[in-house]
């Protein structure tokens, strides 16, 4: 304090201050130049890769199409494809009779001729998703603790559980389904195992990330009182991650309903098989009917589970 007043106006302190501001300006300008250069290079690389991949995947291809007058001419694939989609949608539209109510219902009956069978299969899909979610929650939950950096009892256990979770979520459900169909034959059981195994990997990963963000103090308290590793996890960690676990699990149920509808394609139970058959037989109106039923169901499930999730999060907030 004293030295400043003594030093007077031409103080070396002031000079030093000026030069440090200059130095700051210089460094700032430098940093800005550097960040501009990085940005420029980044953009060029991004654009180059973008065009390379689009070209590679055939976005710029030209295809021969039949025109209105019957002649054939080359066209860019994208508009050519869209004109085919037109066709597809028209084929999916049912012929509905709007002249009278009884006629209308009769034509609807025609469209949804397999409603009972389809709803049954959809229910099967939902049950597969339900079982698979429970399976996934249970094993994902148990494995998430040894798979968390902060909780793993040792490195070996940590790496083994991590790798196991990784494998089970990297292999797609369809591939697991094929493997389980080979092992146990076609049917819902293969579906449950396939979707469940995949869900276990995905949930285990999410749960373990939640575990890695907890406070370690409660666990230390349990440990200091003589609690085992399991006690520390049960009393110290689980209460902290429960809300996350519930939220992730409900979300996973929604995802699993979609997954369990798809795996029917290869014969692992559920509505997927019917979808596949309709596609094979080119029964386009069946396809649209199943599609509508499916969309409505998914909508209801998503809506319900979202309500439930918010309810639970709300409860958490209040207490």
């Amino acid at each position, binding site marked *: 304090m004293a030295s400043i007043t003594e030093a007077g106006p031409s103080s070396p302190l002031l000079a030093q201050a000026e030069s440090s501001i200059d130095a700051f300006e210089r460094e700032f300008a430098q940093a800005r130049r550097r960040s501009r250069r990085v940005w420029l290079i980044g953009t060029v690389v991004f654009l180059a890769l973008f065009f390379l991949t689009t070209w590679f995947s055939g976005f710029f291809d030209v295809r021969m199409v039949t025109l209105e007058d019957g002649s054939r001419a080359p066209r860019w694939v994208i508009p050519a494809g869209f004109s085919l989609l037109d066709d597809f949608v028209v084929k999916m539209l049912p012929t509905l009779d709007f002249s009278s109510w009884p006629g209308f219902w009769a034509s609807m009956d025609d469209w949804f001729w397999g409603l009972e069978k389809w709803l049954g299969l959809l229910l099967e899909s939902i049950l597969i998703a339900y079982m698979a979610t429970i399976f996934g929650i249970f094993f994902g939950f148990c494995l998430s603790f040894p798979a968390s950096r902060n909780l793993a009892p040792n490195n070996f256990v940590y790496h083994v559980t991590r790798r196991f979770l990784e494998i089970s979520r990297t292999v797609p459900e369809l591939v697991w389904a094929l493997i389980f169909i080979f092992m146990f034959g076609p049917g819902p059981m293969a579906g449950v195992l396939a979707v469940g195994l995949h869900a276990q990997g995905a949930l285990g990963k999410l749960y373990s990330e939640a575990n890695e963000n907890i406070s370690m*103090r409660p666990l230390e308290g349990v440990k200091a*009182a*003589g609690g085992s590793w399991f006690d520390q996890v049960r009393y110290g960690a689980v209460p902290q991650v429960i809300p996350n676990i519930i939220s992730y699990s409900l979300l996973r149920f929604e995802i699993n309903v979609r997954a369990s509808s798809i795996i029917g394609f290869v014969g692992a139970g559920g509505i997927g098989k019917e979808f596949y058959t309709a596609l094979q037989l080119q029964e386009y109106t069946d396809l649209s009917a199943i599609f509508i039923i499916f969309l409505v169901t998914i909508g209801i499930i998503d809506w319900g589970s979202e309500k439930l999730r918010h309810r639970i999060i709300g409860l958490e907030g209040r207490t």
Partner: protein
Amino acid sequence: MEHASLRLENLTRVFGQTTAVDRVSLDIAPGQFVGVIGRSGAGKSTLLRLINRLIDPTDGKVTFGDTDVTTLKGRALREWRRDCAMIFQQFNLVERLDVLTNVLVGRLAGRGFLSSMAMQFSDEERTMAIQALDRLDLVPQALQRAGTLSGGQQQRVAIARALVQNPRIMLADEPIASLDPGNATRVMEALRTINKEDGLTVLVNLHTLDTAREYCDRIVAMRAGRVMFDGTAVQLTDDVVRDIYGSEGLEEFNEAVTSTAARVRETA
């Protein structure tokens, strides 16, 4: 065994370059109320953690009666931790569980896997927990979430948890450092009561000299991992403190925010 004394022999713990605890030897008689003082980084917390075996020593050993604590493993180690209860500056409660369950955590050592995973406790254990809470005037809060209590209440819950462990020794790592003076006094009084009524050995880390003087039969002062002073409160005069820590060290102690007594005496 019940009246065994705690003995530290050349206890040492090294973290990389720093020797947190450096050849500490102490003999603590049963029923003593011992305060450990020292500046931040002196190794006080490390010393308590070594005793409770939350960390393992690099060298030296801890014995309790005939038991060599440093070689314990598995169940025996967990039982030692139960016998040697510990409370922390930040309470270390499970904030999302209710107070009663937090206290029952003190009963976990050596119980069955399934009943502990199911959080099932016997009626005797619940009674024990309620009695402990009653000693600390916390029965009305028994079913409240621990996280909703005030700091002082949380620390008393931690003491109740320590009590149901039926410990022989009570370790406290700066139990009042995050409390206001009123709560700090209540917590220190609770420790004193336990020491007097149950005859428990208490070993407590403190930041403030006057608290140590007020409550402790014996004061151990540490600096850079070593014991610099070991004696009674009367022997620890301001001159001795200045000798050990220098005058800025003395100020640091006396000006610490948390203190159980409003300090009037100025040491300049």
